[in-house]
Structures are given as C-alpha cells and as structure tokens.
C-alpha cells in the first residue's frame, strides 16, 4: 500500500517508453489508485454471498484462534470473525454511500441557494447571510458529539445514522459550493443566459450549478472516508447499530475486552478493514481530483 501511495506522485507522466503511445499508459496510471475502492465496492455487493459462514449466528466454539476453517478466528460468542468483517463492508459502505449522496446533494442545493441570494437586498439577502453565518457556527460542535446526540435520541438505525452523519458533514459541502457560486455568479455566460430570457431558476440550475459543483464533488470521496470513520466511532461508543448486526465499530468495541485476555484477532481485523476502506476512499479522492483537474475538463 505504501508503495502505491509513494509511487504515484513521483511518477512523471512521460515514462521512458517512446515506442508505445503515451496515452494508454497515463490513463492506466491515473486509474490504478481507484482499484482498491472498486474491489471494495464489488465486495459490498457480493459480501453476503461469498462469506463462508452466516455472520449473525454462532457457528463454532468461542475464541478460536485464527487459522483453519476460521481464517480470522471466532469471537467471544463463537461467530466467525472473517465472515463478520466481510459482511460489515455492506453495512458500513452502504451507509457511507447514503451519507455521501445526501450530504453532497443537500450541500449543493443549499450552497447554490445561499450563494445566489447572499447579495440580494431585503429579507432574502438577510436570510442568506444569516444562514451563511450559521453554517460557520456549526463548526463549534464537534461532529462526533452531534452524532452521539442525534443517534442516541432518535434511536439507532441505518437511516437515522445516515441522516445524522449527512447533517454533520453537510456544512463543508455548503461552504465549498457557496464559494464557487460566488465566483461563477458574475461570469459572462450567466449574464448571457439571464439576458436570453431564462428565469432565475433556470439560470441557477442550468448554468450556475454545473459550473460550481466541482469542489463539492471532489470533496465527496473525502466525506465518504470521514463518514466511515464517524459511523464506526459511533458504533464503538455504543450508540451505533445493535449487535449482532456486523458493523466494524461495534465489533471493535465488543472485542476490546478480549484484547485484555490476549484475544487480539476479534478487534484487529475489523480495525484493519476500517483502515483499508478509509485509505482506499482517500486514494479515490486523488483520482477524482486528477480527473476533474486534467485539461479538457
């Protein structure tokens, strides 16, 4: 993993191979860091089909060491750690996808509306500026605390968890979009569209939105990684999904008591899976940034 990370930025585009056309090789290099994420996404779809044991039932004696039929051992209740770790990709990644879509969609919409109305006079502008100050203020409550409060009070389910996380991570998207809208708003093509007789709504959706969405979309894989971390943290703190639902955070927290007794495997493997998932989202960020920044875009 380190090799891939270190190799990508140092590799200058023209490789010393003049005979082959440069294009396919550069394209291949650009897409390579997205591979771990693609594999994870594939695993999410087929997770329940490929696991050797049912991830939610007791299948073997408790606390078996890794090896043999149970690749990652079994936990204190006798559930297969490998099956649970793999099956948890489904819960954790689906949640992260939901969060990313919601946070980005709401962030784009809100950022667009705020950016377009901020300079307006009267109530509209006042509201816009007020909302803007408020988004800045939301930084003052740590995301994890909001998660604990919302999930703790509204009850743990994939939906409430996702909504809570989307709310927490949205302000960033709003800020990014708003800043871009403020830049784009005065561009000539927007004026042209307005003079051509498009309604303010049409101008906003057809011309301003496509040209100001880039930063938020680039940031969305970041949001993806953060939402995996926060959802696992909430699970670890005991306000996440109820066991036996396989979820990395819950698996880690229930496994911690085994660590004291030397049973490291129930905790280590979900923690590693968490690292791999977040790191592959980070690699994807690099790919998206490179693609959107490349000339011709």
């Amino acid at each position: 993993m380190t090799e891939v990370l270190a190799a990508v930025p140092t590799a200058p585009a023209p490789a010393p191979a003049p005979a082959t056309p440069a294009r396919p090789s550069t394209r291949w290099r650009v897409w390579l860091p997205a591979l771990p994420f693609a594999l994870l996404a594939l695993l999410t779809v087929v997770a329940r089909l490929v696991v050797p044991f049912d991830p939610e039932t007791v299948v073997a004696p408790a606390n078996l060491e890794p090896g043999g039929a149970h690749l990652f051992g079994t936990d204190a209740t006798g559930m297969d750690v490998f099956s649970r770790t793999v099956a948890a990709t489904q819960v954790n990644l689906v949640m992260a996808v939901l969060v990313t879509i919601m946070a980005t969609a709401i962030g784009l919409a809100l950022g667009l509306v705020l950016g377009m109305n901020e300079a307006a006079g009267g109530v509209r502008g006042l509201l816009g500026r007020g909302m803007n100050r408020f988004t800045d203020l939301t930084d003052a409550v740590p995301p994890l605390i909001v998660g604990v409060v919302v999930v703790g009070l509204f009850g743990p389910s994939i939906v409430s968890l996702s909504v809570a996380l989307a709310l927490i991570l949205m302000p960033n998207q709003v800020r990014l979009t708003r800043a871009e809208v403020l830049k784009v708003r005065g561009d000539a093509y927007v004026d042209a569209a307005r003079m051509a007789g498009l309604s303010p709504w049409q101008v906003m959706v057809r011309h301003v939105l496509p040209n100001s969405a880039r930063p938020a979309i680039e940031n969305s894989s970041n949001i993806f990684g953060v939402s995996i971390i926060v959802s696992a943290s909430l699970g670890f703190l005991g306000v996440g999904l109820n066991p036996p639902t396989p979820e990395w955070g819950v698996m880690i927290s229930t496994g911690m008591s085994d660590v004291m007794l030397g049973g490291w495997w129930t905790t280590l493997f979900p923690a590693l899976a968490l690292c791999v998932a977040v790191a592959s989202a980070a690699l994807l960020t690099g790919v998206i940034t490179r693609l959107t920044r490349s000339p011709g875009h």
Partner: protein
Amino acid sequence: MSSFLARHRWWITRTLVLPLHIAVFASVAFFLVRLVPGDPVMARIDASGGFTQEDYDRAAEQMGLAGSVWSQFGRFWSQLVTGNLGTSPVTGRPVWEEVMSRLPSTVELVTLGLLGCVALALVLAAITVSTRSPRLHAVLRGYGKLAGSVPDFAVAILGLVLFFVVLQVIPAPLGRVDPRMTLPDVTGFPLLDSVITGDWAVFAAITARYALPLAVLVLVHTPSLWRQLSLGLSEQVTASPTLFKVASGATRTSIHLSVLRRASASSVVMLGAMFGGLIGGVVVIEQLFGFGGVAQFAIGSVEQLDFVGLQGFLVVIAGLCLLVFFLVDLVNMILDPRRRPGVRVDG
C-alpha cells in the same frame, strides 16, 4: 479616544461578537435537545400500573421539562446568564460541576496531542523546505497520505495489539494510573496536578499510559496541519517580502521567522479546527484506553435521557470551541494585520 477605538476596533468587535455566538449556540443546543421524537417523560415513568397527571407532572418537573417549551426556554436563559446550567436530575449534581470534573483531563490530552502535532509539523515542513532529495520527499508524502486517511482509533488498536499484547511494554489500557493509585486533584488536569503536588510516581504512571494515545494522535493528525503549513511555506519562501529581506541583509533567523509568520495563517485556522474536532473525537481514544473524558458524560446523558445535562454539556463544549476560534482569529489578526476588518490591501 476615537483614534484609540479606530486602532483597536479589530479585536474589540471580535470580542463583542463572542458572547453573541455563544448565545446563539446555547439556544440551538436547547432546541436540538428538545427535537427528540416522542415524549421523553413517558419513556421515563413507569406506566405499567397506570399513572395520574400528578405522577406525570412530577416526572416532568424532575427532568426539567415542566411547563411549555417557551417557559423552559425562559428558565434556561435566566439561569444561564447567572452562569448556572441547572442540576442534573440523574446525578443530582450541578451540570457545571459534572462537566468541569471531566473537561480538564480531555483538554489536557488534546492539548498535549496538538502540541506534538505542531512540533512534528514544523520539523517535517523544515525538512521538506530545506532538502531536495526526491526519495525523502516521496517517503514523507506517502506518510502524509496514509496517516491522513486512517482513523486514529484503528491505529490505536494496532498499537495496543503490538505494544500491549505482543511486546508487553505498555501498561494495560485501564485508566490514567494504576488502579491502586489515587490522582491528586488541584486543577483537574491530571498530569499538571501530579507535577504540582510533586507526586512523581503518579507522573510516571500517567506518562506511561499517555505515551501510546499521544503518539497515535500526533502520528494521525499531524499530516493535515503539515499540509497547510508546507502549502503556506512553499508560497512564501520565494515571495517578494522574503526576497526583500534577503536582499537587505537580514539574519537567517529573522528571515525564517518572517517566512513562518506569513505562512502560518491557514495552519493556525487548521489548528483551531483540529482542537474542535478532537475535543469530541478523542472520546473514542479515551474509551479505548479507559480514560474517563468529558464526552462520556454526554453519552451517559443521552442514555439516561438527561436533557438538562445534555444541553449544559453542549453549551460548555460549544462555548469552549467558540473561545478557541476567537483566539485563532485574534492570533491571525496579530500575525497578519491585513486580516483585520476594515484594513485596505492593495493588489
């Protein structure tokens, strides 16, 4: 007098805005807590044998939920202006005391972690600016990317498995000190208190138990700070003010300080944001190592439906974060006078 006001407007206005921000937040915290679906009073009282209106009213009174939302809001504010956050119906102690008995230990851990981050970021930035070895740069960039994208508690678990289970060089993650020791209590900051009282056994015990969590915090959170710092440095190192300093024969130290001063604005903002994130985020690390921190009070309040405790906690945490943001703004306006409001910048 008016010229004094004009010259000092930048920090006076910023200071006046601080209580306003805290007030807005206190109100938001109040309503956030009351957005809970269903009737929390009903969840609390034992309705199996039937209950009367008096039972209900008494339970609501106990939970601080008597009367309409607006009368509760009025009560909340009239207490808040006198610095009273109310009494927790669950523990029976004032919320301020409950929060303050836990907050210093969290602040200590976060502050030590951030100091480590600053030190490491400065060292890394100095290395990247002053060396040209592409191999070294690649290794550092690799660390930055990898560490910046991995959750801290997962790294802490790897550390625990390695150092506690396999190598057995660190004590069990079961608290700040050995269970047989008692923590001195002077200021509430555990490590500081052990120094003040001169209790070196406790100091050594805390240090041994802080080593891994702090190392993890520093390793995982430094890259985001370092990235801001090296962005700023690479911009400023060849900027015209630097060239002017060099040309006018300033000493090396003075040149370095000047570059650092101009480059550090965004890093200071980042540091403030990191403090805010960690005050809440470090709870996972605290739980992992058995340190009781301030966020555990919030989790307890949520589980027990302690509304008074929860809203008090939110007010204190938001107040603390807003105070830190305030300091960040002031530091930035001192470092770079162009950031003061009303200052006109050419170009």
